[in-house]
């Protein structure tokens, strides 16, 4: 009933000359990105050549080590091993996390009962439990899947919860006023309205999942990428070790960026305004 100062522009024109502006900015950022990668590589190369540390390879040596491992197939095999627990764990976190988040968002009693657990899991250093899981579930796939789940589940669940909570109340009351029932309210209003933020949570969950799988492979038993890292370190093949680490970091970044890109493609128009 109070005055709302959300003044809308008379015509938020649907067709500004947006594409050209955006593509121009895109080119510029791309230029800066390339420049900063080049500078980074140059610094790395220089630091490697100064030989300040016996274990620090040059950039070029690292790159060639990377291609060597790709060529001999060890890289590909390692990735296949690593992706298995990651994908299983993430799929589990996704299903459980989103269901739990939505349930917490919709029901006060579920929220009261479950949310504190997720809050603790998100704020606490869950990684400390990884040795314990190994201790109980052994060194196999189950432990690694569990490590991924432990790290990725809380962030997915909490984001889904927040997403449901952030659904504009006027949309829910709109559905109610047009006589939508509870089911329709949930499936036609709440879930679609919450999906952008849920997806953002999924993205964070994937980032956490990568952390989980790498930690598991370093702490539990060396398999996949973790094995490559540990092995090359033990035989002092430092360029190979750096190449492996750089590749998994890069791989995680690419996966997360891809999700970010999909997110922008899918939800961009909505993000601009819900009113």
């Amino acid at each position, binding site marked *: *009933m*109070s*005055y*709302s100062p*959300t*003044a*809308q*522009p*008379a*015509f*938020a024109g*649907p067709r500004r000359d947006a594409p050209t502006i955006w593509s121009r900015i895109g080119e510029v950022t791309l230029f800066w990105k390339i420049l900063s990668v080049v500078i980074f590589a140059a610094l790395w190369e220089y630091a490697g050549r100064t030989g300040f540390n016996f274990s620090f390879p040059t950039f070029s040596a690292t790159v060639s080590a990377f291609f060597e491992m790709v060529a001999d197939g060890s890289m590909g095999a390692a990735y296949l091993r690593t992706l298995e627990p990651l994908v299983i764990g993430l799929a589990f976190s996704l299903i459980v996390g989103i269901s739990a988040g939505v349930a917490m968002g919709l029901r006060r009693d579920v929220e009261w009962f479950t949310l504190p657990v997720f809050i603790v899991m998100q704020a606490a250093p869950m990684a400390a439990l990884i040795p314990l899981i190994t201790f109980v579930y052994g060194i196999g796939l189950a432990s690694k899947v569990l490590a991924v789940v432990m790290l990725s589940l809380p962030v997915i669940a909490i984001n889904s919860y927040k997403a449901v909570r952030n659904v*504009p109340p*006027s*949309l829910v*009351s*709109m*559905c*109610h*006023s*047009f*006589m*939508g029932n509870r089911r*329709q309210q949930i499936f*036609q*209003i709440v879930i*679609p*309205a919450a*999906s952008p933020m849920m997806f953002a949570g999924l993205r964070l969950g994937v980032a956490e999942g990568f952390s989980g799988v790498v930690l598991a492979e370093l702490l539990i038993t060396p398999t996949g990428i973790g094995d490559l890292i540990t092995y090359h370190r033990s035989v002092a093949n430092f360029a190979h070790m750096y190449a492996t680490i750089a590749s998994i970091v890069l791989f995680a970044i690419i996966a997360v960026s891809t999700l970010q890109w999909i997110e922008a493609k899918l939800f961009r*128009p*909505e993000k*601009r*305004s*819900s*009113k």
Partner: protein
Amino acid sequence: MSLALAKKYEEPTPVTKPSNPIIEVRGVSKVYGNDVVALDNINIAFETGHLTSLLGPSGCGKTTLLKIVAGLLQPTAGEVLVKGKPVTGPGPERAFVFQDFALMPWASVMDNAAFGLKMQGVPRSEREDKARHYIAEVGLAGFEKKYPHELSGGMRQRVGLARALAVNADVLLMDEPFSAVDEQTRRKFQEDLFRLREVEKKTFLFVTHSIEEAVYVSDRIIMLSPRPGRISEIIDPAIPKGINPDDLRRNDVYLDTVEQIWQGIRKYVE
């Protein structure tokens, strides 16, 4: 809440009682928490086919009253009758237009306008035909496939209006529908509202905080006073029918009514 007490506040000014009321509000009170009295024993009836404005300073409970009529809020005491039947929740004979439009950002203009029909289980082709008709009615023909973010504020509210019209309710409940719309669009909107009232023969309940808007568009203005929310005055603006909008804004009756209301409200503002 006894009936005798209810009688005391009824009809503070001598105006004609609705002869054919579609909505009757009987002794409605709304208390938030334990002590915030948003509405205190409101008794009022709304005439079929009229546009009635609820006007008052902020905090007078006008939106609360509208939402109680809509069935979105439950009154603490009293009841609302629509076509003689007590309101327990939202119903098909009432449609709500929201202040912030409440459009689904992920749905096209068509899907937004057809939402109410979808909730009623109307098959797709039928509801799209109806929605298309009302989208055209509110002046958005050709925009069916656009999304809310591609529309201006005024256009978005037109979608909200089309959605409310499409369910073919008898009563349109409008909660400050033009407050988030700029001044030029707002005037155009008000004129369109006149035309809609003639064509669609619907009853409008209109919440606004703009005195000019209320005087301009209403058959009757219900003035509410805040803390606790009560009816302070009922005014029927006696503006000549069929006057054109430009003359109206210079019309003496119009200007006098605006002044009269302002004098009534100003003590709450200062």
